[in-house]
């Protein structure tokens, strides 16, 4: 069966028409694999009295729902947004894609809008990758991946990208927030607290000097 990887090179307009047709016929057979299934989540939440001290990971309370192709795209996009550098790892190395899966699989109403936005956005970005570069987004090199993202991140994006811009902005917030809430992410951003200590010494002299207080 066809996957977005098999799409022939063609212009954007034709590609979209082709995709719409293909989606309509294939969705019947395998909706999860190909089309964005944005139907509401029916799982249960953690309830009003969860064990607070337990350490949870995505998937512990409700099932994750991204398909493997969607997960590949999510991983790739997360790492374009938060790549590894000399001091800190990439988003996928910190499990951020799992968090995004947990988020869009959440049974709570506040995430329902994000579910639709993200799933449709992931589908769009794969289509866009195929249209422009003939490969799925995850199979592209960093440069074409960045080119697609830059169109959405531009100061004045093309009006036709309106919906995709909202997707990218939201996906960026989730990726960055998911990243900086991990121990490695906290270190990367410069948060060094959460360590019990016998005393509180106040700001160091260098910090006071930095703002002209010493």
């Amino acid at each position, binding site marked *: 069966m066809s996957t977005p990887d098999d799409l022939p090179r063609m212009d954007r307009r034709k590609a979209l028409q082709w995709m719409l047709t293909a989606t309509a016929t294939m969705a019947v057979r395998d909706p999860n694999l190909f089309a964005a299934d944005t139907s509401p989540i029916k799982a249960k939440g953690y309830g009003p009295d969860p064990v607070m001290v337990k350490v949870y990971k995505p998937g512990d309370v409700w099932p994750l729902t991204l398909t493997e192709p969607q997960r590949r795209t999510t991983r790739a996009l997360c790492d374009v947004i938060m790549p590894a550098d000399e001091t800190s790892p990439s988003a996928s190395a910190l499990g951020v894609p799992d968090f995004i899966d947990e988020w869009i699989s*959440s049974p709570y109403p506040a995430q329902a809008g994000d579910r639709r936005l993200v799933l449709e956005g992931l589908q769009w970005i794969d289509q866009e990758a195929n249209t422009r570069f003939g490969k799925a987004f995850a199979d592209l090199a960093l440069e074409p991946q960045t080119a697609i993202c830059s169109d959405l991140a531009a100061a004045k994006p093309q009006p036709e990208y309106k919906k995709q811009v909202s997707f990218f902005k939201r996906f960026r917030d989730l990726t960055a927030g998911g990243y900086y809430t991990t121990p490695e992410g906290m270190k990367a951003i410069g948060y060094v607290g959460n360590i019990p200590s016998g005393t509180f010494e106040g700001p160091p002299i260098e910090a006071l000097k930095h703002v002209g207080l010493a």
Partner: protein
Amino acid sequence: MPLITADKLQDSYDVVIVGSGAGGGQTAYTLTMEGLKVLILEAGRSFDVQSEVAMLQLPSQAPLRGEKTPDKQYGFHDCSINSGWDIPGEPYTNANKEPEDQFRWWRQRMMGGRTNHWGRITLRNGPYDFKPRMRFDLGFDWPIGYDDIAPYYDKVEMLIGVFGTNEGLENSPNSSPGVLQPAPKLRVGELYAQKHGKKVGAHVTSIHRAVLTIPQDADTLPAKLHPGNAKAQSILADSMRTRSPCFWATDCHRGCAIRANYDSQTVHLRPALATGNLDILPNAMAREVTLDKQGRATGITFINKVDGSEGHATGRAVVLAASSQESVRLLLNSKSNAFPQGLANSSGKVGKYITDSVSSSLSAHIPAFEGMPIHNEDGAGGPHAYVPWTMHAQNGKGELGFPGGYHLEFTSGRQMPSLTVLNGIESRLGHEGVLFGPKLKEEARRYYGCHLGFGAQGTMLPNDGSFCELDPELKDQWGIPVLRFHWKWTDFELNQAQHQQQHIRELLEAMGGKVSARTEKEKTKLLRQGGTVIHEVGGAIMGADRESSVSNQWSQTWDVKNLFMADGAPFASTADKNPTLTIMALAWRMADHLMDEMKKGNI
């Protein structure tokens, strides 16, 4: 006497208390230390602060990075269970449709009540706060003045442990010498605001919070609090010695397993249980205050939530400390031939005059903080400083367009990052478009810790449009009629909110801050909705006479002399100070009076 189940209730108690939070906890503590036999009914389950609170867990260790959900409305690690503004099976209604005319009602259904998740800010009301009519010709004067309650503020502060400094400020009273614990050093942002705030008349100083910064003085405090009572002194000394001072990490809203900050269980219920004079029945939802033929309260009818059965607890006196509006609801639901409009309601004032803190906030990016040397400023799990209200001269002359005032609380710093840590980074840093890739990581390092804001909390005087009554139709899951709220801001609150916004903006700009929010023209949009500060008080206000109020200066209802209020319900107005400390001081004072009346044979 311990935590019990409904079948272990004793035939009768000296006092039956509804609620185990700040007011119920303080009342139970005071009474049991003096030998009275007391029962507390708590609607929530028992909760073990030592083993159940999540102190050092990270957001990445919670579902959805710990963000708010309908199940955990203050976030996953917040020390609240079975609690929220909307609780399944426990509805309430609003008479009005517009959001600004609605009241949102937080319920904390767990042992210790709301004391589990508050900010531990413990500011004393000042002399003006008790006499708004005398000062502004508005609202109602309380039947007590500052001097009546000052000794109880001292006692509560010594008992619970409060850090802070005495600044000798007008209407923000000093504590007596030796009462306060040392204040922690201020953080960079707090010091920076202290220096630059002077330009706009903002006086930044140490805040008062119920967090131990050093061990409590278990050798001398118990004798000061319980003179001549060796047993009470010994129990309190033991309790104080089991409390550890702050270990300078984690947000106090998560609760405190090392017992450094105040919550009702840690400070009140534990020693009260140790006296052997206290029974606590959890999962007991109070439904009605019962009366005898002479019109005296005889106890409380409750629903045992474990099996849905109904039970009754009997006492010589009844104290309602269920949270202000839950206590009001109990009174309104306790109808009889003698009190067809609800108990203690011959004045028709039960449910009237609800107030909440008048609150708005604003934040900014402070460029001076960019590139700050990395350091740990967790501190005491909440603010170390605040901006007390000092513009008394102006509003005394009526120049500001509102009575009372407000204080400012710091809202940020180099806190533990949450999921929203970078939301809005572009507008704050002046970027267009969306940052991503290496540039995002670079800007995140520059941006983090540069965000600083203030939340204002101010005076609200009672008005005729903010009240509650029983909903004529709706009942909760136990068949108990629910409350219907009415809410109305007056021009005073709206003017105050506008002043708050302008003052905070000036303060942030004096620090070089870039405020990204536009000036909101619609005043009602500036204000946090009624009830959302969770400082609601009133509904059974104390006053000088039985025609205009529900209770007297002892929080004793005029109509039923063995029925007392020990939560925020007797407050005749909201000061610009957070209410919890005053709830405890009034509860202790009420309990002393209750015991006096019992000794005199009046109850």
